[in-house]
């Protein structure tokens, strides 16, 4: 009960909510710094700062910082932590959008089959050996979008009321089916097996500044588009009919937002593979802390999802070091029990 009291307080006072948001952003920044610093090689904050400063200003490194440190921290750890942060943010925002559109706190790109569809798209590009610029992110996005359209069409055909449970169940069925095809491909093209397997479980290993450059603009543009629609998202949580009655062009808004959230998921999958549960956990936690209004929920989901992913990646690369745990396994170990908790706690109420 303490929890609900706290929630109400934050909901009530705008100042409290703003303070909470600022604290969250600071905490997120601290987590990122920890994620960059933690590992087998130690670096002082001062040295880390001078490495970043030298790259930003273009001045040469001060003499006391070893060039090896520069390559470890600037070339390996920083981009890796940043990619993890960005991917986590993208997935969380796309999850929050899906949940509003389907009026279901259990909806996400992962449960809707977007992730596995995007993964299959990426796998086909990988296996076929086609190499064109941007073919991987573009194919992932297209395949993810196709999967979600099929899932929605299937749902509409089976259940004319398109009830939320049906959507989730069919999404899960498609997700598992597509994963089956992936496994089949992985076995068939055994020389790609290791790479495909990593893709299915997700990994941030060896991600560099190029990956940051792919994800960053997509993350910023798509999140800004979503923020533009926050009022509509709030209304859409009351269902399509009420949204229409309140003046929202539901079909248009839904189409735009499903495409945007598929792009967010597609780009994430194309750089990191399939990673589940972040898109479920982050928006849920943010709603508990800050309430359901999307103008707060969307940016805060990005912050929380990003920080959560960066932490999970830290766990993935340090716990069994020098071996790495697939990031999807880490998020699932934390996320699956959480998913069950949300599902059953929600049921008790109803």
């Amino acid at each position, binding site marked *: 009960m303490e929890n609900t009291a706290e929630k109400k307080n934050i909901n009530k006072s705008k100042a409290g909510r703003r303070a909470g948001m600022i604290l969250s952003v600071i905490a997120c920044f601290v987590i990122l710094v920890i994620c960059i610093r933690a590992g087998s090689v130690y670096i002082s904050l001062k040295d880390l700062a001078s490495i970043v400063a030298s790259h930003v200003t273009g001045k040469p490194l001060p003499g006391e910082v070893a060039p090896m440190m520069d390559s470890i921290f600037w070339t390996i750890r920083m981009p890796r932590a940043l990619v993890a942060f960005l991917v986590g943010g993208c997935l969380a925002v796309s999850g929050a959008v899906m949940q509003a559109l389907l009026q279901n706190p259990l909806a996400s790109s992962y449960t809707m089959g977007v992730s596995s569809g995007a993964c299959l798209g990426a796998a086909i590009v990988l296996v076929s050996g086609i190499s064109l610029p941007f073919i991987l992110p573009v194919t992932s996005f297209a395949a993810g979008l196709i999967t979600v359209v099929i899932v929605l069409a299937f749902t509409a055909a089976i259940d004319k009321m398109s009830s939320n449970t049906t959507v989730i169940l069919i999404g899960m069925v498609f997700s598992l089916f597509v994963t089956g095809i992936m496994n089949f491909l992985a076995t068939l093209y055994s020389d790609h097996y290791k790479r495909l397997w990593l893709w299915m479980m997700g990994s941030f290993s060896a991600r560099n500044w190029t990956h940051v450059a792919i994800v960053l603009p997509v993350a910023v543009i798509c999140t800004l588009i979503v923020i533009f629609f926050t*009022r509509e998202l709030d209304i859409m*949580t009351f269902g399509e009919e009420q949204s229409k009655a309140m003046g929202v062009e539901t079909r248009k808004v839904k189409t735009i937002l499903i495409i945007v959230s598929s792009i967010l998921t597609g780009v994430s999958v194309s750089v990191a593979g399939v990673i589940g549960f972040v898109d479920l956990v982050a928006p849920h936690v943010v709603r508990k802390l800050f309430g359901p209004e999307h103008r707060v929920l969307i940016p805060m989901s990005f912050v929380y999802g990003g920080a959560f992913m960066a932490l999970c990646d830290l766990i993935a690369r340090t716990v069994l070091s020098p071996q790495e745990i697939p990031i999807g396994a880490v998020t699932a170990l934390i996320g699956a029990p959480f998913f069950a908790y949300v599902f059953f706690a929600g049921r008790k109420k109803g």
Partner: protein
Amino acid sequence: MSLIEIKYLSAGYTKTPVLKDISLTVSEGEAVMIGGPNGAGKTTLLRVMAALLPFEGEMTLEDKDASHMKRRDIASLIALMPQTQEMYFSYTVSQAVMLGRYVRMRRGLYGPSAEDKETVDRVMNDCGVYELRHRLLSELSGGQLQRALLARTFAQQTPVVLLDEPGNNLDIKFRAELTEYLETWMEGTTEYNGKKIKNTLAGVFHDLGEAARLCRRGVFVKDGKIVSDMDLKESFNSKVLNEVYDFDVISYKRTESAFWNS
């Protein structure tokens, strides 16, 4: 002036329409009761009047073809209060009522204006939920939720309001207050497209007595067709009611009132 004009319209959720060949005109300033037995198509008729369902036939709203109108324009003319349903996300009452301002608010990323805030406070007060404004919708009782949704509907500030069983879940005091509130509201006007339009109401009411206090006109639906459309009091005195409900409504109501009079 007619605000809603429906001609030879059929509509429904699947291929077999719920409403068949309906014609109905609602003029400015009217209060219309929609009645009929369970499953007759009353809610569907309300949805059609708010242009929420795909239909075959003709429909004009304030002399414009409804099928070519934008949602925003329809929702500035007509607000619909739906029957209560499950809530998935926990908005507070005042947040939810503010959402009703969508068509009236400045577009873009602006926050609510002083006028928006004022209107929201006023309608929450009118609907008796001002004290509950910081509560979460998911924590409200059925009747409280009903009043919160009513407030959201009036926050939309439309000249036409459609209500689907607004008295549902309300205790007798709030039902009486609701009727009173609607009576007062009916005397006013609302601005739409720069014109002042007399407030207009149509609703599904279960209590014929309450409906009769508000509505002059009664439209009765049965098996997806309008079977009677006339002065409500007159229909009470004819056999229409008994035919619509397949039940001797008038004797039942007389026995009931005899009980209160004794």
